[in-house]
């Protein structure tokens, strides 16, 4: 009896994951009103960055820290790829990394760091309180972890990138390891006005988690 139930479970899991992975090709872009929002940080050139005032460009926002020599550079590399894939549309998008480690990642550090990727990418920082508040509103999990290593501490954090439109509205959250083509697709959909402007409703699972 239990065996049969397990068979059912496996069968249906497989079936629905197949169905849903097929659907995953379409981006369901809407408008988030319960995640994200306005904030003010400073970029690596000392210029103030107000999210709601970025009316010229779409913003791809992501979170990281400079002492992360593996994943964060991968994300930045991927953003370089996205930028090159965007072609003529690349001037319509800005890329911004918010540091989750403002104690170590100073303005000058961010400036030097970005030179190894794309100097046009923004490195944003704020004080600890502001950083934590923004992370909370964007649902970014992060935790400083002391390591018995030359590194001192690492900052465990959730990945993903946030696509914000020219009105400062969060339109889509790309999970970690989304291919560059997904970002391009999402950006193009918004630029071409093909994305839905409906307010997104949280799923039952998100309600449960919160």
């Amino acid at each position, binding site marked *: 009896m239990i065996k049969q139930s397990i068979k059912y*479970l496996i069968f249906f899991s497989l079936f629905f994951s197949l169905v849903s992975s097929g659907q995953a090709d379409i981006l369901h872009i809407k408008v988030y009103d319960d995640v994200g929002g306005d904030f003010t940080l400073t970029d690596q050139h000392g210029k103030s960055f107000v999210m709601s005032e970025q009316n010229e460009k779409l913003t791809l926002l992501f979170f990281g820290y400079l002492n992360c020599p593996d994943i964060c*550079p991968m994300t930045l590399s991927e953003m370089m790829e996205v930028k090159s894939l965007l072609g003529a549309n690349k001037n319509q998008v800005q890329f911004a990394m918010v540091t989750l480690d403002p104690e170590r990642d100073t303005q000058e550090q961010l400036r030097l760091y970005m030179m190894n990727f794309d100097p046009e990418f923004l490195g944003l920082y704020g004080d600890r309180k502001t950083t934590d508040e923004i992370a909370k509103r964007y649902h970014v999990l992060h935790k400083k972890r002391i390591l018995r*290593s*030359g590194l001192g501490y690492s900052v465990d954090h959730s990945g993903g990138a946030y696509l914000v439109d020219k009105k400062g509205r969060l339109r*889509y959250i790309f*999970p970690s390891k989304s291919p560059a083509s997904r970002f391009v697709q999402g950006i193009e959909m918004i630029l071409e006005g093909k994305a839905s402007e409906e307010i997104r409703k949280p799923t039952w699972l998100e309600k449960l988690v919160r």
Partner: protein
Amino acid sequence: MKYFALPLLVLSFLVTSTFAEDPHGAMQGMNHSMPAGHKMPAGHTMKTMPAATLKLGFNRTKAVHLNNFYAYPTIKSVPGSVYLHFENTAKKSDELLKITSKDVKTVELHETTMEKNGMMLMRQVKKLVLKSGETKPFVPGGSHIMLIGLKKNLKKGDTVDLTLQFKNAGKINIKVPVIRRSGKTPTHSMHH
């Protein structure tokens, strides 16, 4: 029987459909669970890499072969990483005892993993054992050799000297080339 199967069935539907859609990212990591190359058989990782365009390092002087090693440009105030493939061609297993370098204060092994809640963790790896015939890829998003306390900024064209000490294979000195960071994971051949 039916009483038991039905809730399971409903649950399996809800769970799989929610995870697959996952627009919010709350469950990220379920779909995209492991970093590329992390748990893949070594041969697979190689095949996905296009033909050689960048000069990566190789050392096959000892029973442990070090293949495809490279580092990326970085500023010295933050750690750098070296990626490579370890290959133990000996009949018995071997162990990496330590890595030293004149160019870096501390050299460690670290591994990146992703938790079910989407948290990405980086942990130090204290022990690296290579079984006979085993290939261990250290690739972006998986494991890396971490260079902490670089004595100079790493620029394209520079090299980093590393000495890897193995229990059986002994000392292996390598010069790790610093290659340009592009939008893609580096491309290279196996030089077979």
